[in-house]
C-alpha cells in the first residue's frame, strides 16, 4: 500500500505553460462606474508572428473557465488611443467585455521591454467587493481566431472613497447588557452584575448577554478587554488558560457556553452556525480571562447571534478584604 502511495506521488504530472510576462494594468481612475482609460502592459514571449491580441474582461482570470462579465463594465465604446513596443494594432471588434486588436501578422521584434496598449473610454465595473481580470491572448491570425501563441491575465479592482448608495452597505450591529434581545432592538438597560459576597467555600457567578450580527462578507470578531477584579492593589488572578472552577483559590474567568459546575450561562442562540465562541471560551465548565482575547467570531456573514457570558469568581481564604470590582469592555469589529 505504501509502495502504491509512493508510485502515485512520484508520477505526479508536471505542468508547462507559456505566459506573457511583465503583465500589468493601470486604470487611470479606479472609481466605480467611471469612464476612464486602461493601460494594458505585457511582454511578448514566444518569437512568432503576431496578428491579433484578444482581450476578454471577466471576473475570473483563469482562461479555461466560464467568463462572467464584471458588473457595470462596458468596453464597447473603447478606442485604442496609444500603443508602444509591438505596434500597428487597431481594434478589429468589440462588445461589452471583449476587444480584439489586429494588425498585419508580423514577427515580434523581441524587445524585452513590455508593450503597452492604452484603451480610452472604458466604463469601470461598479462592484467594489470583487476584483476583475482581463484575459489576454496573442494569436498569429489577424482575425483573433486559431491557435494562441501566448496568454496571461491582468488583474484590476475598482475602489472608492464614498460608499455606493445603491448597494446595501455592510453594517455591524452590536449590543451588550445583562439581557439583550436577539436582534439588539431592546436590552435590559442594566450594565452591571452584582455577584454577591465572596466566600472561599463557594463560587460567585453572574452572566451578561451580547448580540452581534453583520452582513459584511468578512464576518465579525468580539474582543474582550479589562482587568480582573481588583480592590486597591489586591487582584483576583484571572485564569490565563481554560480552567475549571476551583473554590478556595483566587480565580476570575468567563466563558460563552452553558455550564453545570457551577450552573451558569447559556449556549449561543441563533440560527447562524458560523458565529462561535473561540476555542478558549467555548468549553463548558472551563473559564478563562485574558484581556485582549478574541472571544467570539464569525468568518463570514452572520446576521444575528446572541451570546451569554458567564462570569465566575473564587476567592482564597487569604484574600485581602475589600470591594472587588472591574469593568469589562466588549469590542465588536469587522474582519479583513
Amino acid at each position, binding site marked *: 500500500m505504501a509502495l502504491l502511495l509512493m508510485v502515485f506521488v512520484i508520477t*505526479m504530472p508536471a505542468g508547462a505553460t507559456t505566459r506573457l510576462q511583465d503583465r500589468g494594468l493601470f486604470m487611470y481612475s479606479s472609481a466605480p462606474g467611471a469612464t476612464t482609460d486602461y493601460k494594458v502592459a505585457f511582454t511578448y514571449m514566444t518569437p512568432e508572428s503576431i496578428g491579433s491580441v484578444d482581450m476578454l474582461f471577466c471576473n475570473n482570470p483563469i482562461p479555461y473557465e466560464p467568463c462572467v462579465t464584471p458588473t457595470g463594465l462596458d468596453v464597447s465604446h473603447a478606442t485604442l488611443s496609444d500603443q508602444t513596443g509591438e505596434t500597428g494594432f487597431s481594434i478589429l471588434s468589440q462588445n461589452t467585455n471583449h476587444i480584439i486588436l489586429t494588425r498585419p501578422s508580423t514577427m515580434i521584434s523581441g524587445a524585452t521591454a513590455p508593450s503597452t496598449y492604452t484603451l480610452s473610454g472604458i466604463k469601470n465595473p461598479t462592484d467594489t*467587493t470583487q476584483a476583475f481580470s482581463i484575459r489576454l491572448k496573442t494569436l498569429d491570425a489577424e482575425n483573433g481566431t486559431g491557435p494562441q501563441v501566448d496568454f496571461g491575465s491582468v*488583474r484590476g479592482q475598482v*475602489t472608492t472613497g464614498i460608499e455606493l448608495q445603491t448597494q446595501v452597505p455592510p453594517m455591524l450591529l452590536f449590543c451588550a447588557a445583562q439581557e439583550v434581545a436577539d436582534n439588539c432592538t431592546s436590552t435590559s438597560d442594566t450594565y452591571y452584575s452584582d455577584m454577591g459576597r465572596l466566600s472561599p467555600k463557594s463560587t460567585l457567578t453572574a452572566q451578561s448577554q451580547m448580540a452581534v450580527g453583520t452582513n459584511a462578507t468578512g*464576518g465579525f470578531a468580539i474582543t474582550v478587554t479589562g482587568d480582573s477584579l481588583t480592590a486597591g492593589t489586591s487582584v483576583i488572578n484571572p485564569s490565563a488558560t481554560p480552567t475549571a472552577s476551583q473554590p478556595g483559590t483566587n480565580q476570575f474567568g468567563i466563558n460563552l457556553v452553558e455550564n453545570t459546575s457551577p450552573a451558569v450561562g447559556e449556549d449561543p442562540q441563533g440560527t447562524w452556525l*458560523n458565529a462561535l465562541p473561540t476555542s478558549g471560551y467555548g468549553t463548558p465548565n472551563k473559564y478563562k480571562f485574558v484581556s485582549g482575547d478574541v472571544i467570539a467570531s464569525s468568518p463570514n456573514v452572520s446576521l444575528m447571534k446572541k451570546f451569554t457570558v458567564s462570569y465566575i469568581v473564587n476567592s482564597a481564604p487569604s484574600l485581602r478584604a475589600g470591594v472587588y470590582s472591574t469593568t469589562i469592555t466588549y469590542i*465588536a*469589529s469587522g474582519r479583513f
Partner: protein
Amino acid sequence: MKRLRTIVVAMFAVLIAGAYALPAGAVDGSSAALSIVPKKNYSIKPGGSVKDKLIIRNLSTTQSLHLTLRVIDFTYYGEDGTPKLFLAKDAPQTTWSLKPFMTVGKSVDIGPGKSKSVPMRIAIPAGHGAGSYYSAIIYSGGPGQGSGQVGLSASGVTLVFVTVPGKVKEDIQLKKLGAYDTGSGSYHFIMTQTPKNIGYTIQNKGNVVESPVGSITLKDMFGHTTTIDDVNPASSLALIGQTRTFTPCIKYKTDGKTQGSQMHANGCDTAPLWPGLYHATVDLFYGQNGNNTQEVVKNAVFWYLPWWFIIIMLIIIAVIAYYIWKFTRKVKGKVNGPKRLSRRR
C-alpha cells in the same frame, strides 16, 4: 502575653470575617447598542484627500448613546482575518498607520433609535510613498448607571484601509496547499472524511495588502476534475507581513437564492469526491493598479481514504492474499508431493 495573643487572633478573625461579609460596592458600568460600518476602503493619491461620513445608529429605543471616537492601530491575529487592536493609549504607532493622516470627530450623542453621521477626513501628503495604510476607529460607549462587581461596556470598531497608488513592492510567497480541515485548523495529507476545503497559505512580504484571486483545480486518479473558481470569495486580505491561510470550499451550500460572496456564508457542502489520490493546482493572481499582475502556481497532492474504503481495500487485500497463499500451497503441494512419494519409495 497569652491574653495579648488571644486579642490579636480575635482581631484578625474579625478582619477576615469582615472582608467576606463586605457587600459588593458601587461601580459604574457602561454599555451601548450600536450599528456601525465594519470596514472602509479608499484609494487616495499622494496629495489627495477623502471626506466621508461614518453613520452610527443607536439601536436602543429607550436610552441615549454617547460614544467617544479614537483612531487606533491594528495588525493581525495569526493566520485569519481577525484584527489585533492596539488599544493602549501609549501603543507605538505602526509603520502602516493612518493616524497622522486621519481626522475624525471626538464624540457623538445619539438619541434613542436615531442615527447620526460623524465626519471623517483622510489626507495623504504630497510625495508620500505608495502602499497600503490602515488603522481603525473605535467607538467607545459611555458608562452605564448602576452598581455591581462587574460593569459592562460595549464598543465598536471600523477598520479603515487606504491604498496610495503607485509603484509598490508586491511579494506573495505561497507556503502551503492541500486538503484543509477547518475543524482542526490544519492541513492533512490523508483525509479519512470527505475533504470540504482546500487550503492555501500565503505570506505577504510586500508593503501593500493583498487580496489574491484565481482558482484551484482538483484532479483525481481517474481524471475527474473539480474546479474551485473563486479562491477568495470574501475578498479577504493578507496584511503586510501576515501569513494568511485561505480555505475556500470545494463546493458551496446553496439555497438557490444567494450568489457570489453571499454563498460563502452558507458554508461548505459535501463534494462528490471519489476515494483516492488527488492533485491540487492553485493558480493565484495578485497585483495593484499600475503594477505588474503576478501569478503564482503550485501543485500538491493528498489522499482521500475514507474508513469504509480502507476496510474494503483491506478485505480485498486479505482475500487476494488468501487466494495467493492457497494457490502457492497448492503449487507447493503439487511440486513437493511426488518428491515425498519418490523419497518414500
